[in-house]
């Protein structure tokens, strides 16, 4: 700060008054006064101002103050402390100091950015306190300073670190959100792909069925036609599973009761035997999609066999049951296909038949073994499904 170029003469007079007050203090507190000695010698920068003089000038500054600010004693005595302020000094801190003096507060403390003579800055922890006489009138202000640049720097860097951390967290959050969006888009395209594949599988199954059907209608012999229709039935059984697979909300599991019901109804309708009645005893039992096709083929073989061989002349009843078994029985499920026809001995599902071989093979793939029983009258085939191939039921199961 450089303001000595054009001082008005009264300002010069004021400074001389301040010098005189300083000299008076010196005289009153000469060598031997321990309080004065302490203030003169302490390493804490201290000044005394005189509020009764115009503009509250500095009348005393100790060596520590001069050392801190870089000014000589001549340069500070007689001047208001504001020469320590600079362009980056917080105006609200200055206003707070002024208010503390106006309100004659007994003590005041604040951190304020001050400037040395050479223009460098330091954070000043300012402590301000009035010196009163016996009547309480304020004669002087006592101000101690402390260079807290180091602490301030730490505070700043803590704040900066916090801000940097916030930025980092913000960036990470954005990244996470973006990758979530990307994942969702990928999942969407995977679902799309899955549906396209499913569509193709269904169409191909339809084409295969059409081919077999056409060929069966053109077969040279009734035996050839029957063999082809047997294959058609098996393809259609697979179709029943695939048709259901993407109609429900979940693609990874199927309700055995639903596709077994569809399949049996389909087979009885195809037989053209109005004298055979289907009876169902079903409850929802979910199976993993990879196990649905073998199970559908088993149902196809069992029901087809009953239709073809159990009822030679008279009609009858085919019962299809799908039920969960209790925890005591292993927590799986049981599928039963039962007829009240002529019984096992006359049936093709006897040992050595193709249908029986297929059922045994498919059952072993599902980790189970069919039980062939005589129901008197008729035949009962029981298939216990291990819990490992079952899936947990949907929240809402189809009726």
């Amino acid at each position, binding site marked *: 700060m450089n303001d000595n170029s054009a001082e008005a003469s009264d300002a010069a007079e004021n400074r001389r008054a301040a010098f005189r007050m300083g000299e008076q203090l010196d005289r009153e507190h000469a060598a031997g006064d321990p309080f004065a000695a302490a203030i003169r010698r302490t390493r804490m920068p201290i000044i005394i101002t005189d509020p009764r003089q115009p503009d509250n000038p500095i009348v005393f500054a100790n060596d520590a103050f001069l050392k801190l600010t870089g000014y000589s004693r001549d340069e500070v005595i007689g001047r208001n402390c504001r020469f320590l302020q600079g362009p980056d000094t917080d105006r609200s801190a200055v206003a707070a100091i002024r208010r503390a003096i106006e309100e004659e507060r007994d003590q005041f403390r604040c951190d304020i950015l001050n400037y040395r003579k050479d223009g460098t800055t330091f954070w000043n922890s300012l402590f301000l306190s009035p010196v009163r006489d016996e009547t309480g009138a304020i004669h002087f202000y006592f101000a101690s300073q402390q260079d807290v640049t180091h602490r301030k720097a730490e505070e700043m860097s803590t704040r900066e670190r916090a801000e940097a951390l916030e930025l980092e967290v913000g960036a990470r959050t954005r990244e996470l959100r973006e990758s979530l969006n990307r994942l969702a888009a990928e999942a969407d395209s995977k679902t799309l792909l899955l549906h396209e594949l499913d569509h193709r599988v269904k169409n191909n199954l339809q084409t295969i069925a059409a081919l077999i*059907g056409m060929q069966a209608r053109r077969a040279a012999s009734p035996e050839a036609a029957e063999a082809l229709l047997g294959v058609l039935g098996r393809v259609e059984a697979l179709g029943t599973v*695939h048709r259901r697979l993407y109609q429900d909300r979940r693609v990874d599991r199927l309700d055995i009761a639903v596709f077994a019901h569809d399949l049996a109804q389909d087979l009885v309708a195809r037989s053209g035997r109005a004298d055979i009645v289907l009876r169902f005893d079903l409850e929802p039992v979910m199976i993993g999609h990879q196990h649905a096709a073998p199970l559908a083929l088993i149902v196809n073989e069992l029901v087809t066999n009953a239709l073809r061989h159990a009822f030679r002349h008279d009609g009858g009843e085919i019962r299809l049951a799908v039920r969960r078994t209790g925890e005591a029985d292993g927590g799986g499920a049981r599928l039963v296909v039962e007829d009240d026809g002529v019984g096992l001995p006359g049936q093709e599902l006897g040992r050595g038949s193709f249908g029986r071989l297929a059922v045994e093979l498919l059952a072993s793939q599902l980790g189970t073994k069919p039980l062939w029983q005589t129901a008197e009258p008729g035949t009962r085939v029981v298939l216990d499904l291990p819990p490992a191939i079952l899936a947990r039921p949907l929240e809402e199961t189809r009726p």
Partner: protein
Amino acid sequence: MSRPAPLRVLVVEDEALLAFALQEELEEAGHEVVGRAATSAEAIGLARQARPDLALVDVHLLDGPTGVEAGRAIGEAGTVVLFMTANVKRIPADFAGAAGVIAKPYSASGLASALAFVGAALDGGATPPPPWSLQLAPHLRPAEDGRMRLRPP
């Protein structure tokens, strides 16, 4: 299975083999096939010309996924429409005016049962529920006597 009322049927299917096999199955079941169409324009033209009782319409045709709109036009011309598709989700909520959908892959007997139900519904009334192979449009409701009708008797 009782013999259903014979229907005059239009087959709208872009895959020649499926269309041909479908025609054979329909004829075997006693129905008359008035024609096969592989594009939407062909389908609409044939429907207006031959005035069939029923059109079986695939969603995907040679000119693209135009089956839904073709079905709407055919339905407006006075023919009962059933969609036949592997992609049931493609069908709009209002079924584009169609009576229902037969999901692919359908079986021969599933097709026969569905047609028997539609035949009955066109001729005096069918007794619900429809066979599992036929998914009816949600706007169709049974009459007061509990039977489904697709056209006033």
